[in-house]
């Protein structure tokens, strides 16, 4: 699905956020990315969903070199990639239904989009998607009246309506109550299995990544620190992954023994 060859991203005047990264993701694969804050996970995601271009290197999506695309052809590729964000990125003032249906905007003309704001099109589609994430009764509620976890479900429903081939979830549970986090991660995994989608998830929580994903990648300073099946990730791998941030912030290195029973959502608070 994805093939990255020596991909780097530099923001002006600063060190590389993503540095010479090689990565292959097969169609239908489920993988988690973990790593300390500032490791370049979000930057990598923004390149994967074609929001920002790499500074150098080659990024192939489904065998397609996307670096030269623009306009309509760029939008067509973007439609095939769905993104769930940490901050939901919904429009708070709009009713839930419009936020869900905005996943269809890539396929609608301006005129259709405008008409749908007045009289929603494809209501059944939105209702179906909301049912799958478990909150069909919220269809006409104002989005800002929903709780954080419910809003994240709306964002997932938007991605379902978009019906992409790949789902990128960028720390989807960081702003959600820890008790609900595992549920949302599970939901995303189940949905992408049911619809045979590739799922790449960025996680702050090591234990969630190890518990739910067959493949786990550790990202540190813009480079891949390890890329292993979850069962083969050891304390040493994790210690190496979080070593620098420990020096910086004085945090303790999480060990598997500590993490597993706690089941906390954010073992590594950023501040």
């Amino acid at each position, binding site marked *: 699905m994805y093939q990255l060859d020596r991909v780097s991203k530099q923001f002006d005047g600063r060190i590389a956020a993503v540095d010479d990264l090689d990565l292959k993701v097969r169609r239908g694969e489920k993988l988690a990315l973990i790593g300390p804050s500032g490791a370049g996970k979000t930057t990598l995601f923004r390149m994967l969903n074609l929001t*920002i271009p790499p500074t150098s290197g080659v990024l192939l999506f489904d065998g397609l070199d996307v670096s030269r695309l623009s*306009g309509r052809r760029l939008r067509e590729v973007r439609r095939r990639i769905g*993104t769930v*964000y940490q901050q939901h990125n919904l429009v708070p003032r709009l009713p839930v239904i419009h936020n869900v249906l905005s996943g269809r905007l890539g396929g609608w003309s301006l005129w259709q989009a405008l008409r749908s704001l007045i009289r929603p099109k494809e209501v059944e589609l939105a209702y179906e998607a909301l049912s799958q994430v478990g909150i069909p009764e919220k269809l006409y509620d104002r989005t800002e009246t929903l709780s954080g976890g419910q809003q994240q479900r709306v964002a997932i429903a938007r991605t379902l309506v978009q019906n992409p081939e790949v789902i990128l979830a960028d720390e989807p549970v960081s702003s959600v109550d820890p008790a609900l986090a595992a549920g949302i991660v599970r939901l995303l995994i189940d949905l992408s299995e049911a619809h045979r989608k590739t799922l790449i998830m960025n996680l702050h929580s090591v234990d969630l990544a190890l518990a739910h994903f067959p493949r786990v990648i550790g990202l540190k300073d813009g480079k891949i620190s390890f890329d292993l099946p979850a069962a083969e990730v050891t304390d040493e791998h994790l210690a190496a992954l979080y070593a620098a941030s420990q020096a910086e912030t004085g945090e303790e290195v999480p060990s598997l023994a500590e993490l597993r029973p706690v089941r906390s959502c954010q073992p590594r608070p950023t501040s």
Partner: protein
Amino acid sequence: MRSFAPSAPASLALPARRSSYFPIVFSSLFLLTFLGSYKLAEVQPLLLFEAEGRRNILKFVAGMFPPDLSWNFLNLLGRPVLETIQISIMGTIVAVAIGFPLGLLATSSLTFKGILNERELAGSRPRAMLRKGSYLVARAVLSLFRTIPEFVWAFMFVRAVGLGPFPGVLAIGIAYAGMLGKVYSEILEHVNPGPQEALQATGASKLTIILYGLLPQALPNLVSYTLYRWECAVRASAILGFVGAGGIGQQLEISMRMFDFSQVITLVAILFVMVAGVDVLSARARRAILDRQRV
């Protein structure tokens, strides 16, 4: 005093206090500007209290009473009052119609900057230049529109299309398009970009992103500012009659030129009621919108 001294060991130095001369420099500049302006603008408050000034003021004020409330005069005013309101409404609509598209073009986060354009314009210098060019042109046009006062616009349009309310509509439309467009672009630039990024990532086009991600977030502020401008337009359209652009101002000018101060006071009172009424109306509308926002 000693007791307040920090008891930390000498090795633990306080962070260096950054001193700056800016406040001093700026205050002295401000003072100089004030003194210079006072001199150059020939401010002479005492002139108001000299014998001749006092006599003129007295004549002016005494002439105002009793106000002219004769039926003949009031009957004359019905149309101009209505016309003034209509000029302000039409003028504001024209201003929105011109100012909104220009405002969109003058929003840098839409045309060439930020997350919505980073991918699109990467590696395509001509396109990036074109976008930046249209942004600069829109800004220039908007600032041209608003640097020329509506009074001057009205003067020019009266020459172009003749006397009557229409030049007033055009004058307000153009001058206010400049102000609306500028403020629209500032409002739009400060909208949370997150939802727009998300919509872009679904493959939505720029215009649908504006429709679903940008406008719903900015709408309360846009509407509230437009209503405020409408208020100003009522004031302005009352004055535009001075150059022959219709409305109550035309009558005001005639009465003033004829030194009929009893009519002037009536007109001023009517103007006051009108502006206050619009004030209340738009304040209500604005509060309703902003409250709805805070549900």
